[in-house]
């Protein structure tokens, strides 16, 4: 009996340690980002908003954050529309096509982004599309759409198809049935897909890194600042990024779409 308990205790201990491992670094980062000292040390001796105020007055950081937000704000609705349409199309297509097309559509998730980044750079460079915000946006889209396809696809699979048939037998046209019945039912998947798309674009590094030379986004600005010294301003920008993404993820949890996102992995 002693041994039985010990196994349970061991599993519990590893599980708790792992959960601490997963969230502690981000908490340390948040705590340190509120230092008012000139350098980062643990623990900070005094707390304040000094470095957050700094990044809101620094042109480089503001521009980088602004570009990131702009691209994510444009990429999200576009990815949601393209991805949702594709997911519905996949759901309706002949089953022989479904598997191939679906695999093709979600392959950017598994393909090393470094490969995709250099390939896109290679194609964009000759047409001078590489160092432009539009170029970033188009490249981000192909990374965001797979998430929408997966989350909306999961929602559609869980959906009762007879509801749509009922609507159509009552005289609704196919577009009306899609708009009034299918889309509202797929909403959890659409919201989850939108959150994933936004975060994917907002955090994207390597593909943008290949394309960028003068234009920067927040992750690229953080990366290039890291090569000098780990300054409190980097901690503050990281903290701000963290808060934005945590707020969005909180929306996901509250919406109960977490189950959907767990299913996709």
């Amino acid at each position: 009996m002693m041994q039985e308990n010990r196994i349970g205790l061991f599993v519990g201990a590893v599980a708790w340690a792992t959960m601490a491992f997963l969230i502690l670094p981000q908490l340390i980062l948040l705590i340190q980002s509120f230092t008012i000292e000139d350098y980062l040390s643990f623990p900070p001796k005094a707390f304040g908003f000094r470095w957050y105020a700094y990044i809101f007055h620094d042109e480089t950081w503001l521009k980088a954050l602004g570009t990131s937000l702009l691209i994510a704000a444009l990429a999200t609705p576009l990815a949601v529309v393209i991805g949702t349409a594709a997911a519905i199309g996949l759901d309706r297509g002949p089953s022989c096509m479904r598997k191939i097309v679906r695999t093709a559509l979600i392959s950017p998730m598994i393909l090393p982004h470094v490969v995709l980044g250099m390939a896109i750079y290679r194609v964009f460079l000759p047409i001078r599309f590489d160092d432009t915000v539009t170029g970033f946006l188009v490249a981000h889209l192909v990374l965001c759409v797979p998430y929408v396809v997966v989350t909306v696809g999961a929602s559609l699979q869980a959906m009762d198809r007879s509801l749509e048939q009922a609507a159509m037998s009552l005289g609704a046209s196919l577009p009306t049935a899609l708009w009034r019945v299918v889309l509202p039912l797929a909403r959890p998947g659409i919201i989850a897909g939108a959150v994933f798309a936004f975060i994917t674009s907002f955090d994207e590094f390597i593909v943008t890194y290949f394309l960028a030379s003068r234009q920067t986004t927040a992750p690229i600005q953080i990366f290039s600042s890291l090569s000098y010294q780990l300054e409190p301003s980097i901690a503050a920008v990281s903290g701000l990024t963290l808060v934005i993404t945590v707020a969005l993820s909180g929306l996901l949890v509250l919406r109960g779409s977490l189950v959907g996102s767990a299913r996709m992995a």
Partner: protein
Amino acid sequence: MSVLKRFGWRGLIAPALLLYAVVFFLPLGVLIGDSVRPSSSPALSLQNYDAFFTDGISLSIFLRTVRLALFVTLACLALGYPLALFMRRAGPGMRLVALTIVVSPLLTSVIVRNVAWLLVLGREGMVNALLREIGLIDAPLPLLYNTLGVVVGVTHVYLAFLVLPIFSSLLAIDPSVEQAAASLGASRFTVFRRVTLPLSMTGVIAGSTLVFVLTMGVYLTPVIMGGSFVTTLPMVMTDLVRTQFDFSRAAAFAVVLLAFICAVLVISGRAEKRIDAMRGETS
């Protein structure tokens, strides 16, 4: 809307396929084409591939990347399997908390998490500060800019991809099978070893494959947490493109990497199918 009626599902998929054609399939095709056209001569040749396997450096970096990916996969299994077991046994409230914690890294920026680890593991970081405070060490431990630092960082980034498949395969196990084994006198450890673990194997394979494949393509974390001391294939490829402008060689590296990843995916897919088939026979 009449478009929808006329073309049906094809019309709905078309925008996505158009996007993929331009920024996914075309670039990858161009990449493969470039890899057989070395920058030194315009003629088609396998020179780049030949060099990859014979120049001694490329292959050793590739093998080092494989080794790093194996380390990360093992670390993820060691941490992730117990966590998945714990989540299966937990009540609904605790399960939601654990699930949120597991998924949360997927929703936070990789670079932000790397910066966080710099603050935890750096020379003046939290771990060294605490250890010095309690008098365990005099000089800071080298926790960063080595393989350990990179394994920690990448494990943190990809752990969720392993926990979620294992958790869902554990959830699919009928508890009565385990109860039957226990009632026949098997100890709890035996039940785990002979029943639970084999039945969760599809999740283990799926999750490990995902982590392994993703780690093969990792760039950012080794650069930040390994400094210049840990080199991975993606780092070499990026360097070839960005500083040496040798796109053709980098393209050959990319094709080798892609081929390797495809092989791993095919093998693991076969293994999963076989396990499923075996399960079908026994049940």
